[in-house]
């Protein structure tokens, strides 16, 4: 909410000079944060209040007027040429920018000849002073400026110099949505006394008629409308509001319209009570009814929109039809216009939820609905009505009809809340003396009495709907006493045993980083097209992502069902920016529908593009084995050893059918896949070159357990090689299986050294394989003879079972 410092100052007696900066600081520290501090009306100097002494037409120009003005009661007159059509008659008051004045933008005035006559400075229009955008004529001061001394600095004398606070009002502080509420807060904080504006109608009341004879009010739904106060003001003339009111409204972000409309806005910003002014003559049947809308009822609001209503909407109706959408916006039929002379002023109270639903459904967020949604004090309705009636009578030259119609079936009383001082201390950590607590509360308008030892009984005014419990009072005490007076202590808490966390995730993460991959954290949502681009088989649940009902963009309209979609997107993002060496991984949740609702399993996904690491220039092209190596790094990182198996998987999704493998754990359960990204998917994602990657279903993987140490070998090992030619399609895993099937007790390890396929040296359809077998036992040094015997047996079994030949 925007607030004017001048306005606030009028509503507090500080008993001393308080600067806007001090006021802003106090508000911020108490929870009404001043988000922006904006001085206004201070960007011009040398503009004074002057009186027109005479005016006559310029001899050489039709549109110019020669004006004599003076800026002291018996001073000399000065000649100013004015181009505006509205120069007032002698005696009228204007704003004169004298030679030497500086206008907004740094424009300095001097004396200047206009059509042969020298003009000393100029008479100012609104826009020239940066006060508004009106340039139809110069500013002519109204009756209200009659008592201001001539020659007074205009900015100061007219209160144009102001500071606007942009305040962030917490959602529970509806009382601070008016200047009076903010002023009450300032008074509490800075030892001032809060004041109320004048609402005494005795001098403006016309006792010849009564409001009751003009209008009757009935409320059909008292839950939705707890109170309705109607007042009538007659004999009004519609015109522009005085400058001071216009200026204040502009400062709080409201465009001035006319005196009759401006008053309702002004009082709303002053007291926080939204008001509505109806043209009384346009109301039919001399009655107001507050009721819910009928099904398929319609009405046209002030903004010319025809609104379709639902039965939850609350309406203000005259004898025939709806005239306002309660608490949200007025209707067209009873709108204030040029001919309005009698106003029916509504100061009502509407229930928050009702207003909120209507405003939300219609997308109509008005200053009025904003306040009602946050709950307005029903007991403030009559005061606001009086205040507005007084201003309407004063500014519109009319009289207030005696009395009011005030329908308030169930009066809402202030509540008593008790507060234990001991609880206050236990919760806050500070001890505040009882007198200080009582005084602190009193400054906030909360009457507190110590009924029994250590227990306060506090009477909470209805304006403070945010206070209903002991804890709310404690907050109030600590807040006004000052959060900065609360010391910083450390909790004296109970120590309880903590759980051993599952280290799988953090180990996998560390292993990926150690293996040279950088972590990416992409959005939890993705685009439907990216999921489509993964070309997953029909029936795969990853094809049917969880949709967001109200996405901001199509790109973020569904939840990711795998990490591939956003990570492959990231590869493209990098390549488009000429980053070709891409090594990324992400460890995060994906979102899937399962039999028991939504599942959010944690996965690890890795993508790699570019070349392998080289020196001075990049190394060789990446291949499958780089990705497989990365998988093994992670598995070893988690479990200490690699206990997974890789099996060809021609039905792989996302990956190339021939260059990918399923990753199986030691029990044969599939825990992931690794390989080259399918060429057509690569194309869909617009990726350059071959891209490799893997995916691990972290949730399916067992938790790491402590391993037992295997004794270090004490005796030397002996190695023997086997070099064979075999058919191309024989995988190395088959060779290992055969070797292991020999169950040779002396054999300690098997390692492949070469996979040789050069057609110049190997017959077609064959490949060469070089293996090294290591023999060792734990209790003695082996002899060549023993090892040779064992090795020969293994070698013959290999040759026989693989149909291989020695190379």
């Amino acid at each position, binding site marked *: 909410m925007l607030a004017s410092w001048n306005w606030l100052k009028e509503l507090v007696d500080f008993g001393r000079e308080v600067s806007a900066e001090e006021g802003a600081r106090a508000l911020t*520290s*108490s*929870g009404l944060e001043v988000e922006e501090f904006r001085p206004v009306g201070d960007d011009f100097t040398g503009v004074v209040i002057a009186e027109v002494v005479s005016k006559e037409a310029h001899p050489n120009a039709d549109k110019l007027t020669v004006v004599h003005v003076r800026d002291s009661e018996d001073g000399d007159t000065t000649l100013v040429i004015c181009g505006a059509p509205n120069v007032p008659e002698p005696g009228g008051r204007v704003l004169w920018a004298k030679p030497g004045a500086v206008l907004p933008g740094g424009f300095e005035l001097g004396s200047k000849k206009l059509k042969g006559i020298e003009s000393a400075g100029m008479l100012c229009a609104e826009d020239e002073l940066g006060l508004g955008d009106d340039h139809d004529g110069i500013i002519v001061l109204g009756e209200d400026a009659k008592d201001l001394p001539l020659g007074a600095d205009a900015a100061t004398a007219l209160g144009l110099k102001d500071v606007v606070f942009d305040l962030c009002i917490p*959602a*529970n502080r509806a009382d601070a949505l008016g200047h009076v509420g903010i002023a009450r807060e300032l008074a509490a904080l800075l030892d001032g006394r809060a004041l109320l504006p004048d609402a005494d109608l005795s001098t403006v009341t016309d006792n010849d008629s009564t409001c009751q004879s003009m209008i009757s009010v009935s409320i059909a739904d008292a839950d939705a409308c707890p109170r309705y106060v109607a007042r009538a003001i007659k004999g009004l003339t519609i015109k522009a509001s005085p400058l001071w009111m216009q200026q204040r409204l502009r400062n709080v972000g409201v465009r001035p319209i006319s005196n009759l409309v401006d008053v309702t806005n002004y009082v709303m910003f002053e007291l926080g009570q939204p008001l509505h002014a109806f043209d009384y003559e346009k109301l039919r049947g001399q009655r107001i009814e507050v009721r819910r809308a009928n099904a398929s009822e319609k009405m046209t609001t002030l903004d010319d929109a025809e609104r379709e209503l639902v039965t939850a909407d609350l309406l203000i109706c005259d004898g025939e039809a709806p005239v306002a959408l309660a608490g949200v916006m007025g209707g067209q039929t009873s709108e204030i216009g040029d001919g309005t002379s009698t106003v029916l002023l509504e100061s009502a109270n509407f229930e928050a939820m009702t207003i*909120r639903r209507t405003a939300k459904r219609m997308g109509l967020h008005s200053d009025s609905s904003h306040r009602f*949604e*946050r709950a307005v004090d029903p007991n403030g309705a009559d005061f606001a009505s009086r205040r507005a009636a007084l201003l309407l009578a004063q500014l519109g030259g009319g009289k207030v009809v005696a009395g009011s119609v005030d329908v308030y079936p169930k009066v809402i009383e202030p509540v008593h809340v008790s507060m234990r001082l001991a609880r206050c201390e*236990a*919760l*806050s*950590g500070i001890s505040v003396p009882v007198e200080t607590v009582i005084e602190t509360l009193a400054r906030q308008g909360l009457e507190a009495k110590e009924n029994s030892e250590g227990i306060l009984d506090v009477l909470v005014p209805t304006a403070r709907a*945010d206070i209903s*419990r002991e*804890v709310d009072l*404690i*907050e109030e005490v600590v*807040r006004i006493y000052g*959060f*900065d007076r*609360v*010391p*910083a*202590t*450390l*909790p*004296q*808490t109970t120590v309880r045993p*903590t759980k051993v966390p599952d280290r799988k995730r953090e180990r996998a*993460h560390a292993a990926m*980083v150690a*293996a*040279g*991959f*950088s*972590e990416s*954290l992409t*959005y*939890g*949502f993705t685009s439907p097209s990216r999921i489509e681009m993964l070309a997953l088989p029909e029936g795969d649940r990853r094809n049917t992502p*969880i949709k*967001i*009902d109200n*996405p901001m963009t199509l790109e973020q309209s569904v*939840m990711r069902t795998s990490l591939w979609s*956003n990570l492959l997107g*990231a590869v493209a*993002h*990098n390549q488009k*920016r000429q*980053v070709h060496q*891409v*090594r*990324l*991984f992400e460890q995060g*949740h994906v*979102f899937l529908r399962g039999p028991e609702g*939504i599942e959010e399993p944690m996965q690890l996904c890795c993508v790699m593009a570019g070349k392998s*690491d080289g020196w*001075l220039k990049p190394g060789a092209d990446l291949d499958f084995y780089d990705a497989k190596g990365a998988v093994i790094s992670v598995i070893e990182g988690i479990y200490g050893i690699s206990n997974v198996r890789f099996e060809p998987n021609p039905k792989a999704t996302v990956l190339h059918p021939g260059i990918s493998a399923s990753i199986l754990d030691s029990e044969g359960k599939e825990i992931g896949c690794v390989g080259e990204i399918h060429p057509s998917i690569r194309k869909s994602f617009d990726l350059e070159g071959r891209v490799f990657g893997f995916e691990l279903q972290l949730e399916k993987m067992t938790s790491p357990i402590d391993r037992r140490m295997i004794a270090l070998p004490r005796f030397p090992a002996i190695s023997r090689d086997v070099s064979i030619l075999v058919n191309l399609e024989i995988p190395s895993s088959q060779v290992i299986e055969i070797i292991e099937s020999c169950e040779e007790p002396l054999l300690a390890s098997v390692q492949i050294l070469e996979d040789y396929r050069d057609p110049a040296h190997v017959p077609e359809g064959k490949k060469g394989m070089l293996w090294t077998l290591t023999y060792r036992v734990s209790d003695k040094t082996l002899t060549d003879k023993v090892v040779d015997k064992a090795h020969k047996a293994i070698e013959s079994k290999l040759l026989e079972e693989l149909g291989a030949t020695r190379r």
Partner: protein
Amino acid sequence: MPAEELIGKLDGLGSEFAQALVSLSSEQDIRELQAQFLGKKGRVSALMREMGKLPPDTRRVVGAAFNRVKDGIAGAVDGKLDELVKVAEAADLERTIDVSLPGRVRSAGHVHLLTQVRNEAVAIFGELGFEVAEGPQIENDFNNFEALGFAKDHPARDEQDTFFVDDGKLLLRTHTSPVQIRTMLSQEPPIKIVAPGAVYRRDDDPTHSPMFWQIEGLLIDEQVRFSDLKGVLLHFVKRYFGEDLDIRFRPSFFPFVEPGAEVDMQCSFCTDSDSSKCRVCKGTTWVEIAGAGMVDPVVLTHCKIDPERYTGFAFGMGLERMAMLRYGVSDIKNFYEGDMRFLTQF
């Protein structure tokens, strides 16, 4: 052969060996030369056999000469070998390279900046006994709003513009606070957790992202005070941002805490001379880092915890904001694009 002649020959062999040794430069050649002289079939050994033919009284003199020559040869060999080692070492020390060429790097990868912030925060709170807790990102209305005191249609919900799922039956959590509820519903006090995680709000500009990361803290026990909240957050700020920084609490409203506060820390980015130009704090010398407060009794009651016996505090911080403040990241999008040029900077 008379003894004198034999001795003369032995000495002759000695000097012959010395002469031959001079030109040799490999250990193998030296050993071969040594074998030619001292080996079983060597020349010195051949003369040795002559000694047996001498009368016994002269054998001693000849034997001494024999030993002298043998020792001389062995000594020369050792000396020569030592010399060779030294020469080789000297030659090795002659080598130089271009140290300005790039190193052969086996790069480690980089931990995402937000993970670094998360881990550091978790560690700092961990020292104070806070355990990590987690919860799902797709939540229900009860955990995300209702149990936290956001009544249906409460205007406070407006501040957390929500993504809905399944026709509004579910939602993407707007904060990590539902983890508070889940923990309190599943565990008896004392409760001491931090809950880091991704959250979602319909918001998109250079400092707001529709998905972002928060870390939430919750402590429920007997005798937990507002001043303890201040102490814990002050400790965190000093550890994470700098020992000399102070914090301040500004009253604020969150439905799930009372009293509630926004927490500012002193701006560490202002230059001493002129804070009014500071880009970070905009001249206020304070920057907002957290929302916090004492857990509202309503929340405890929702979670079946007796608010008379137990009190507690909760706080929440945005990881991106912490990272942006500490590392000067200016556009929040940088965190989520997977751009290697960004990721590898930290």
